[in-house]
């Protein structure tokens, strides 16, 4: 049976599923419930510096978008870092870590961008026996207005500087949590790497307005007639997170930089995808906030079963396995020619493929008598839109044309050899194909 045990930058946990720094990890009570449920670790909700506790809004903090049957697809929030006393949190962290030595307890920290502030809090955290720290450079709302969170994460020089301070001050592994609210995620990752970070974690939430109240004409969640942008998370952000994780994983300037994958992880499959793209473990928040801690049972059993099916023994064995297959568009094989094929036995004749192709694509599907839908190979560019809009799984498939056959659309023989844009005759800067 697959071994789910995880070792992330020296931090051990019985499985690679941690709860992300967020409301589910704000107190010993929640964290202990999570551990009882089977979570491998937590990143404790972000601690701020000593002083009067943080104040949160007293109106709604969350907004959501839903799919069918009110399935929550995206959540945004305007909650700040922990609003509990620093020492209460530290005491609870210490107690929890002592009680659950096999689980990972990492502490998220956000203090002002001054060396003294970091030097002051790090020993306090270290004293709890926590396994590591995560620098919150990601929070896009509220704290960023005070020069913290994403305000730091958007300036690579600050990331490097603060990371360096932390590494110089503490023995604990330092994980730098990155904001996605930048143009190119590799720059902050490189800065963290240069500053000596043990790992990066990403993504934090995406700046967002989730919806507008059309009676009050105000963003939601609405506080007394006004709304502020929040941080977007949940299943909807997963594609953005996957791309950013892959970007870092294949960046030659940050080779082997460990990544903790965050962003819409809802099922074992999401976790496996993040890990395949280079994440060493994953952090979960929205899924737990939506369904409760019990989802860990599905995640661990699913991942374990899938690994067994694939013959993968350890989680570490497939970290980054998909990374070599993430390439640039210019290197995609232009001689890989496919055509859509509609399986008439599974077709339920809804005609969505026809509408999509006829109205918005290449007029490559014919509607025949008796609502029979057939692909016109002469027109099909293999865009895959019909596959995506078809409500029946596997009813429309993309079938590869065998090398040597003629593509009825172009009248050209399908070339057996790999050929990409860099050597394509239409490319003004084409080079001879590399053999």
């Amino acid at each position, binding site marked *: 049976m697959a071994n789910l045990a995880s070792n992330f930058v020296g931090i051990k946990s019985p499985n690679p599923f941690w709860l992300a720094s967020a409301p589910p990890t704000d107190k010993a009570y929640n964290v202990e419930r999570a551990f009882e449920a089977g979570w491998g670790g937590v990143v404790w909700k972000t601690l701020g510096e000593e002083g009067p506790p943080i104040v949160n809004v007293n109106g709604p903090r969350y907004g959501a978008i839903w799919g069918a049957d*009110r399935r929550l697809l995206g959540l945004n929030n305007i909650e700040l870092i922990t609003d509990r006393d620093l020492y209460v949190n530290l005491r609870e962290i210490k107690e929890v870590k002592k009680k659950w030595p096999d689980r990972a307890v990492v502490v998220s920290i956000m203090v002002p961008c001054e060396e003294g502030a970091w030097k002051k809090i790090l020993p306090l955290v270290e004293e709890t026996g926590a396994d590591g720290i995560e620098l919150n450079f990601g929070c896009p709302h509220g704290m960023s207005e005070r020069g913290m969170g994403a305000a730091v994460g958007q300036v690579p020089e600050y990331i490097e500087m603060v990371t360096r301070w932390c590494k110089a001050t503490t023995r604990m592994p330092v994980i730098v949590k990155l904001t996605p609210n930048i143009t190119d995620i590799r720059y902050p990752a490189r800065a963290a790497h240069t500053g000596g970070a043990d790992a990066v974690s990403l993504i934090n939430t995406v700046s967002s307005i989730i919806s507008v109240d059309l009676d009050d004409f105000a963003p939601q969640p609405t506080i007394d007639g006004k709304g502020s942008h929040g941080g977007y998370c949940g299943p909807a952000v997963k594609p953005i997170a996957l791309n950013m994780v892959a970007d870092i994983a294949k960046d030659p300037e940050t080779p082997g930089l460990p990544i903790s994958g965050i962003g819409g992880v809802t099922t074992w499959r999401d976790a496996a995808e993040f890990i395949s793209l280079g994440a060493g473990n994953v952090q979960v928040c929205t899924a737990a906030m939506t369904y409760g801690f019990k989802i860990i049972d599905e995640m661990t059993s699913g991942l374990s079963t899938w690994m067994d099916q694939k013959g993968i023994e350890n989680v570490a064995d497939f970290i980054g396995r998909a990374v070599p297959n993430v390439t640039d568009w210019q290197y995609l094989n232009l001689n890989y020619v496919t055509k859509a094929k509609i399986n008439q036995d599974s077709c339920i004749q809804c005609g969505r493929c*026809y*509408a999509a192709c006829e109205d918005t694509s290449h007029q490559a599907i014919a509607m025949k008598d008796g609502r029979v839908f057939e692909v016109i190979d002469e027109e099909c560019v293999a865009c895959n839109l019909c596959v995506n809009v078809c409500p029946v799984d596997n009813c429309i498939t993309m079938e590869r044309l065998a090398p040597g056959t003629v593509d009825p659309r172009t009248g050209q023989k399908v070339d057996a050899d790999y050929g990409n844009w860099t050597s394509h005759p239409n490319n003004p800067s084409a080079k001879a194909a590399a053999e």
Partner: protein
Amino acid sequence: MVNSVLTPGVTSSRLSKDELAGNFSDLHPPLDGHEALVAADRCYFCYDAPCVTACPTSIDIPLFIRQISTGMPESAAKTIFDQNILGGMCARVCPTETLCEQVCVRETAEGKPVEIGLLQRFATDRLMSEPHPYKRAAETGKQVAVVGAGPAGLACAHRLAMNGHGVTLYDARNKAGGLNEFGIAAYKTVDGFAQDEVDWLLSIGGISQVFGKRLGENLDLDQLRKDFDAVFLAIGLGGVNALGTEGEEKDNVDDAVNFISELRQSEDLSKLSVGRNVVVVGGGMTAVDAAVQSKLLGAQHVTLAYRRGQEQMNASGFEQDLATSSGVTILTNVQPLKVIGNGAAQEVELGYTKDDGNGLELTGETFRLPADQVFKAIGQRLDLDDSGLELAGGKISVDESGKTSLNGVWAGGDCASGGDDLTVTAVAEGRDAAEDIHDKLMNS
């Protein structure tokens, strides 16, 4: 409650008032807001959707369902009413399982169609609680007589009024609604919906009602043709086919349509009488309605006897299931031979039938069923003599737009040739005839 299901003969109060109220509650309770969203989300918004083709009134079903799913049930209702002003009743009584829902691609895919009927009700219920959504065009000065205030007549009158014509709506009964009011099982249209719908429909204005006028008795077609610019006949089928069997004249051998009508008009179901042993003869919707309602009133044994095979029954599979799940026994390939009893029915003698391709014939084997009450539901026929109208198949012959053989006279609904005898078909015919009348009145 003085009686029970076991009380012999034909009697009232077999069940308590509470039991009766439960039995005659809404057959398909309406969807609430969330249920409607979930149901609406199942629609695939098909291209050239089969459900629209299957709907006799061609309602743009994917559009109205999408309007529900985007939080606009009132717009959804408008989409429905534009095509079918009796969309509220049709949402309740349409045999959707043989129309839109039968061809739903979800039915093909998973045997569970989008609940189009319930979604239509969700939308129409919302808009019908608001003021009438249509306005009349400027008065044309033209006057049209609509004879028969059932679904066809109401749909025609509404469309004519909307187009600016003045309408006089005649009916033989003392109130409008036709079969919606008198002929449909009570559990399909509860809480006085039929009359509410008539009131809502007529509130467009321009329609005056005259009751107690029956064509051929105290209403003359020739006179109507002289007095009005056009006439639309929607008189339904007033006559009930006879069994043609010995003993048919005995007491408690009744027309199913009368039983249903009485039940629909009853203010107190505990005062309605029903037999302990009931036999309903027929295989259509009316037969099922009479059989199920007999059972719901407290009859102990109800048998529906149909002379042909089950596959030829006009009642849909859903209706047949409704009957059997209500406790009705369905016998097929049996034909009543005589009603036995001293003054009143006591037994029915039936003979088995077969059809080997040479038409229906008796096998010779017979049996008897106890029957305190026998309902005839073997079809209705046109009740109109010497009108000068050409007939086809026993109905008023009409062309595609509802024109009869007489100039200036249109007809639609059950009394006219063509179409299934469904509420929704009648609405389509009334609407289309109105448009044709409008065209003729304005362009000639």
